[in-house]
């Protein structure tokens, strides 16, 4: 019998900008795609984001950012995930990034970056294909 398995996704907004329209729209799109979305609001530090991701046992973290703070927050989040042996959690980003930063972010372990103009369908389809609910921990 088919088990009920939902992808769990944390949509988080690191940094100081308070414009979370994009984050809310993507949270809603993920919900409509059948995912469980944990949404925590603006102004999150990397420490708060990783702590939440672990307590909520998410499969993916989607980071929304417009402020340019990604150069600090993205690597810090990846580092903290590693420290907590949680590097199996997929991390993606969405928002505004200088073009030259994108390959750097991907090289450090951000799985995908979505820029303005990316279609919601495109993003949810990417997640559905690339992120799977993890296996049970076993007895």
């Amino acid at each position, binding site marked *: *019998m*088919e*088990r*009920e*398995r*939902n992808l*769990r996704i944390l949509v988080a907004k690191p940094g100081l900008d308070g414009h979370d329209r994009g984050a809310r729209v993507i*949270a*809603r799109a*993920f*919900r*409509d*795609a*059948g*995912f*469980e*979305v*944990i*949404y*925590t*609001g603006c102004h*999150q*530090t990397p*420490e*708060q984001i990783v*702590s*939440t991701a*672990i*307590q*909520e*046992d998410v499969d993916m973290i989607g980071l929304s950012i417009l402020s340019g703070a990604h150069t600090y927050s993205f690597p810090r989040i990846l580092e903290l995930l590693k420290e*907590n*042996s*949680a590097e199996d959690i997929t991390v993606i980003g969405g928002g505004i990034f200088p073009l030259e930063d994108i390959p750097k972010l991907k090289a450090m372990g951000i799985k995908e970056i979505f820029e303005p103009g990316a279609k919601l369908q495109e993003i949810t389809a990417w997640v559905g294909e690339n992120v799977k*609910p*993890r296996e*049970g*921990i*076993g*007895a």
Partner: protein
Amino acid sequence: MNIAEQIVAGDVRATARLLRDIDDQIPSARDILKELYPHTGKAHVVGFTGSPGVGKSTLVDQIALRYRQDGLTVGILAVDPTSPFTGGAILGDRIRMQRHFLDSGVFIRSLATRGHFGGLTRSTNDMINVLDAMGKDMILVETVGVGQDEVEIANSAHTTVLVTVPGMGDEVQAIKAGIMEIGNIFVVNKADREGSRKTVRELRTLIELGLRRRVENGWEPLIVETEALKGRGLEELYSDIQKHREYLRANPQQLNEVLWKRARNQFVEALRDQTLRTILDRLNNRGVSLDALIKMIMNKEADPYSLVHEILNEELR
């Protein structure tokens, strides 16, 4: 250390993963729950229920802060609804609880109601047990705030807090049926709004009307006005919860009733879920499709009662 031992030692990752496995109904989760059960029974479970938007998350956030000041550790389970159309959910209760994110003494888990696929319920009781075994002193459960959940929480919690707000008019009327009986403490939140006193009076009248039946229990439900955002009334709510806890301690018969209710609820739930799961799995293994059975019933080629009868005869021989 195996997973159960890690959880008893307070490991956050192991706890988080087991909660996921319980939610996803992975069979091995049961084996870990078996190991954890002897470690449960120490936490005090407080359920917060009431309509959406009355301020349950904010109250839970504030009261958790108060328990932290006492040095008590806190586990929070916050439930939000699953979309019946897509199966997805937005779980936003954490927005009000940000100050606890970096406190290792607070564990917060957001839960979706999910679809109860095949009639199975997602077991809040199992999750409470995990947080209890993990060593949390206080477990705060915030219900989704609609429907059956509101009454069910009283079977899981030691103390049930019913939250309402002024000026909802028919709200108090709606509370009357059934729900009135489960509240040990009533909170009128957003008490700065007009009509707060009136709501308190109405609640008091309803409690007194229902009291004749309850007076032998010795616990008269308390009413407290709060403004959760500003922290007003929180000290009083905190002390009311303490009072109820002490009341249970001082009245073994009442405490026993609560413990009995919880144990029975857990057993019946486990029995129902595992029986159903086993039978559905066996049908699946025999190549019987659930969808085909449902279709027969829908098309009136069979009735549900005969089908169940047949299946039980076959599977429970």
